[in-house]
């Protein structure tokens, strides 16, 4: 199975919001679509899912035009939504029926995900008075986090082959974030194809192999995340000494990016420069507690690429 997005274009009047976007997912796993607010991520996801008409290009699933009515697709939209006054079970069964999931299978899957996401008490309430039917919960009786769990259940109820998660972890507390991450890991392990959009860079680094960074609808960076990082080289140096090292940094004309309790964050050109710096520190009798040379983080790459001024 594979997903290919070829030269996708979307215009609103004269404004191009997605410009000639192409990428492909050839293996199961998570593909990250990144960008600042308004970069065109959600528009791209809507075009992939056939909800928005595109002005150019195509989306192929196994070489054929992706039709979400025939391909089993799961979608967790950025704008989360549930019917506030309808019971949770009613709406999950409705969402399952829209995906042609038989009622019996849908009930089994609801049970499975309710256990996984720890929302059984809302879907299968116990009667307050013994022998009396328990009152079913409606969506407006749930906290935001629990509503998000129900929405994730709705996205996964058809056991989709392709899953699109738009900002899946936004608004979740650390406990529920871990719960959601566990679900994503389970989906990866079961060889699902995922596209994820997120502003949480550590999460992207944790799950995604390939990324695309969009800026105002244009691709500013694309490829294998490890390769991208390697191409930047080890240019980030974190140094912490017992003594003050300001004098050594100044003498070597080095660029300090940040100074934190963790130490000095310094930009270097490579291993040669960092080696020379370490030598100088030792020559000056500084006691080095921490000396870490590493590749730039995705956060740094993102800020650099998506935050730099437009070339016009």
């Amino acid at each position, binding site marked *: 199975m594979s997903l290919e997005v070829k030269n996708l274009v979307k215009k609103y009047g004269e404004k191009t919001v997605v410009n000639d976007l192409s990428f492909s997912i050839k293996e199961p796993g998570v593909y990250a679509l990144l960008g600042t607010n308004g970069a065109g991520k959600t528009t791209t996801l*809507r075009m992939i899912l056939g909800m928005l*008409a595109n002005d150019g290009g195509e989306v192929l699933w196994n070489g054929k035009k992706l039709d979400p009515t025939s391909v089993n697709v799961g979608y967790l939209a950025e*704008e989360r*939504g549930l019917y*506030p006054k309808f019971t949770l079970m009613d709406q999950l069964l409705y969402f399952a029926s*829209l995906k042609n999931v038989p009622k019996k299978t849908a009930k089994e899957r609801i049970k499975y995900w309710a256990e996984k996401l720890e929302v059984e008490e809302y879907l299968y309430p116990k009667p307050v008075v013994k022998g009396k039917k328990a009152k079913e919960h409606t969506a407006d009786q749930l906290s935001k986090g629990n509503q998000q769990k129900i929405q994730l259940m709705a996205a996964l109820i058809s056991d989709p082959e392709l899953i699109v998660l738009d900002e899946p972890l936004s608004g979740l507390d650390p406990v529920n974030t871990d719960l959601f991450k566990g679900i994503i890991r389970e989906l990866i392990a079961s060889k699902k194809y995922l596209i994820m959009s997120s502003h949480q860079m550590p999460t992207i680094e944790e799950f995604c192999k390939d990324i695309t960074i969009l800026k105002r609808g244009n691709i500013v960076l694309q490829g294998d995340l490890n390769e991208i990082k390697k191409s930047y080289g080890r240019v980030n140096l974190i140094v912490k000494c017992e003594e003050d090292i300001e004098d050594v940094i100044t003498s070597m004309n080095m660029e300090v990016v940040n100074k934190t309790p963790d130490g000095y964050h310094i930009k270097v050109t490579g291993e040669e420069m960092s080696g020379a710096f370490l030598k100088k520190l030792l020559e000056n009798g500084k006691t080095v507690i921490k000396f870490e040379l590493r590749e730039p983080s995705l956060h740094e790459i993102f800020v650099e690429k998506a935050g730099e001024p437009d070339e016009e």
Partner: protein
Amino acid sequence: MKNSGFMKVFKFSYEQALKSKSTKILMIILIVVALVFLPAKTLITNGFGDEEEEIVQIESVYVKTDNENLYNSITEVVLDNLETKAEFVRTSDEEYDSVIEKLESEDSNELYLDVKFDEDETSQNFGLSYKIVYGNGEKAKEMASSLESVLAECSKDIVISYYGISKEVAETLVPTEFETAVFDLDGNEVIDDSGLNDAEYWFTYGVIMVLIIMVSFIGSMAADGIVAEKANRVIEYIMITLKPMDLILGKVLSGMATLFTMLGSVLVAFIASTFINKAIDPNAENVIQMVKGFVEDGTLKGANIVNVLLVILIIFAGSYFYAILGALSGGMVSKVEEMAEGLKIYMIVFLIGAYAAMFMAMSANTAGSGWGAISYLVYMLPMSSMFIIPSYLLIGKVSALIALAALIVVALCGILLTMLAAKIFGQMLYHNGSPLKLKDIVSMTKEGKKNEK
């Protein structure tokens, strides 16, 4: 069909609408009102000893005719059919002025009846025609109207009595309509040929009122259904597998089905209430007697199978027209609180249609139809036809042909609105911001055409 997207939306929306507390409460209130209204009215009026309706008492009728046999036939038949006793006095042209003088007095209970009879067998209506002259005041007018009704109903019997022929033979010979002209004292003819009598008026008004209530519910239900999907932000999830038309049709038809379910329950309750009422007051009529009465007194002279079918179709097509307009209005806004703004166009169309039908019925009752060509416009406009055609068709005020033309127009307009919705609804559904204006809809239509290409 069962697995089509719109059927899934329809089934879910319909079930949830019936499950909702507000629908249940509204339904219970309407059913209770329909169930107890008639019995309560009977109990209250009987309790207060409501006076019986006053019957207009005609004291004397001055009949001018040269034909004594005809005079005798008229006297005999009319006296048998008048609700009260009256004295019939034969008069002549010479006595006309003195009779009119009597009619002029305020408390006069007398009428002047000029009977024209041309025995030439080729004459229309056997040459029988009447001219009634009445005096001053509303009472005199009512007496004239009462005599006019009796003459209209009994003229066939008068001719049968005059010629001494059997009823069977008369059926094949005697025309059923006789010309009766009513004049006031100034000699002005009171024309009432195209107006509505009381029964027709109340029937027409009752039907219009029920349809207005129905349409006001249907539009807001469809609009609510759409805007709720947007406001609850479920739209993005469900639109992966649904086409915009699935959603709009599902919502529109489920809104209609919910309303028809409510109306059906209310109708059943009303029918039951007429039987309860009959049990309380033996003089009251149950629903079967009511309908029978309407048919027998000629109010529902247009009620035949074809016309009833046309009525059902035009109500359905009109409801669909308004429901899809409501759904489009719902698509124009993103929040429930902006609904009033979104429903502006819908309300304008609805008010024009409902008021045109109401004014037409009102003026028909007070001054005859008098609308000429405008009445055809009201019959044909998709926003007004569903209000006026059903009752007018059943009372025989419009022909089946006009109703069919109105049905075709309203159905075509419904289809055109559906096609427009298909073009722009996709974009409207994802619109999230200030309410859309008409110019936005036009540009969306252009965009829709571009996407089709």
